[in-house]
């Protein structure tokens, strides 16, 4: 363990090493490329592989393939690159492949202002996939959280056999901070469950008593079927409604029913809170200061920073905000995640505070907007 002073991007690269990253596949894109550069320098020294592919489609497919060889794998990209990756990420969903995708949001749509920040892609991070299933999305706000949540992203992906999106943005990417860096062996690391039956009895998509099937990798003596078609527990194509039902509900339930365990947030000034400023990612720094300003002006404001955006833990969010008069959802887009919370918090007054800014929304601006509603 050591204390370092690094950017959010470097913290993600360090976190991935601590979590046991063995294979990084990527295609450079602002503002993620320094993750790639750092890993290209450091990962081979630790026996891992870093490969630049011809584009993002190849990168994500390579990362998925490496995972089936039992190498913990990751890629990092931004909006345009993630758009290219979503088809393959649906493959990862149905084949239940653990893989971590770092999504560093920048100002969009399209090329937008590629060096600057925004939170326009928060819904794409989980709804961008075809197939209508949920993928866990974790959102750090500081370099320390970037390190910690990267480790967590790997653990969640291994435990649930799913792609996990680590949703950062250009502001966090280039923010420096004090980070407690832990080395491999100094963090809790989850490994995918391996089959306990002999190879002749192994059924690659049989979850047994739970919802997540043990995963044999290539080269371990098991027959491994990586099947993108609707498949039964043996991994055989089965174009039948009963099989599709069983598969879809299991894939859905294994993520959604993990919501309580995945739920993670930070809160400040909760005592007697009547005005909650809810945010995520870099914008939650603006709301943290805004809540402090509102408190100093006599409002009973608090700040809540969601670190898990999907799956949405509805009960947990309701409990957290129970009794709060007004809930303001502050984000650097047109008010996207607000739609998620509005549905969850029926009964409370939920107000969208969309502040579009190439950097961080200024706390003063947040305060002024919120005060119009108080």
């Amino acid at each position: 363990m050591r204390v370092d002073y690094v950017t959010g991007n470097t913290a993600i690269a360090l976190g991935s090493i601590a979590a046991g990253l063995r294979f990084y596949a990527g295609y450079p894109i602002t503002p993620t490329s320094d993750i790639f550069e750092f890993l290209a320098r450091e990962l081979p020294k630790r026996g891992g592989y870093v490969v630049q592919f011809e584009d993002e489609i190849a990168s994500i497919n390579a990362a998925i393939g490496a995972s089936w060889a039992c190498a913990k794998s990751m890629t990092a990209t931004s909006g345009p690159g993630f758009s290219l990756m979503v088809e393959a990420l649906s493959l990862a969903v149905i084949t239940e492949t653990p893989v971590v995708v770092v999504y560093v949001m920048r100002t969009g749509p399209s090329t937008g202002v590629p060096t600057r920040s925004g939170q326009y892609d928060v819904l794409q991070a989980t709804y961008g996939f075809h197939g209508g299933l949920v993928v866990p999305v974790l959102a750090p706000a500081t370099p320390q959280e970037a390190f910690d949540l990267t480790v967590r992203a790997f653990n969640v992906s291994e435990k649930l056999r799913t792609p996990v999106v680590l949703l950062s943005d250009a502001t966090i990417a280039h923010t420096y901070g004090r980070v407690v860096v832990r080395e491999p062996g100094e963090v809790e690391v989850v490994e995918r469950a391996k089959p306990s039956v002999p190879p002749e009895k192994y059924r690659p998509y049989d979850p047994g008593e739970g919802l997540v099937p043990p995963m044999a990798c290539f080269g371990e003596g098991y027959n491994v079927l990586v099947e993108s078609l609707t498949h039964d527990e043996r991994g055989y194509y089965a174009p039948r409604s009963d099989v599709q039902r069983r598969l879809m509900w299991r894939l859905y339930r294994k993520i959604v029913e993990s919501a309580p365990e995945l739920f993670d947030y930070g809160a400040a000034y909760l005592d007697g809170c009547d005005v909650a400023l809810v945010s995520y990612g870099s914008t939650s720094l603006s709301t943290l200061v805004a809540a402090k300003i509102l408190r100093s002006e006599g409002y009973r404001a608090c700040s809540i920073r969601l670190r898990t955006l999907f799956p949405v833990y509805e009960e947990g969010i309701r409990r957290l905000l129970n009794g709060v008069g007004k809930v303001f959802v502050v984000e650097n887009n047109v008010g996207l995640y607000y739609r998620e919370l509005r549905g969850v918090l029926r009964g409370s007054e939920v107000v969208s505070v969309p502040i579009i800014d190439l950097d961080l929304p200024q706390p003063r601006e947040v305060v002024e907007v919120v005060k119009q509603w108080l």
Partner: protein
Amino acid sequence: MRIEVLIAGRGGQGILLLGHILGRAVAKYTNLYILGSEIYAAETRGGDSRVDLVIADREEEADFIKVMGADIAIVMHQLQLDAYSHLIKDGAVVFLDRSNVTSVPQRKWRVFLEPYTDIAEREFGTPRVANMVALGHLVRQTSLVPPEGVEEVIRETVPKDWVDVNIRAFRYFLSR
């Protein structure tokens, strides 16, 4: 305790290096929490360079990455003093490079006006270490970080051939 530090100057004056060394020294050699951000222009020389640091003794107080009212500032050029003086609050400790600053606004600051660039050229033969002369002055006057910590960070940050002159420049005000 929560302190905002603003470091500003023109591209080429070593502003980002100064900010990085100070930030790293705070992170590694004090018990304080810190967040920081950088602004720089596309030009190699002459553009706007700025580092914002938010330092606090409790993690939740290191809550932002932009200076809203600096308690401590180093400003190395008149252009940035004109542009950013509104970000420096009354009562702040302000270090100005007299070699490049000609007009100091009438504010309730505690001002240290020293010719950092001229000192660097005269004493160390290069204006490139003016940033370290200024940093040494800040450390001397504010005791924000232990000088040994800063020197350690200089050793691990700057190219080998430049370590010695940077450390000597850093010590200029500390040894007076």
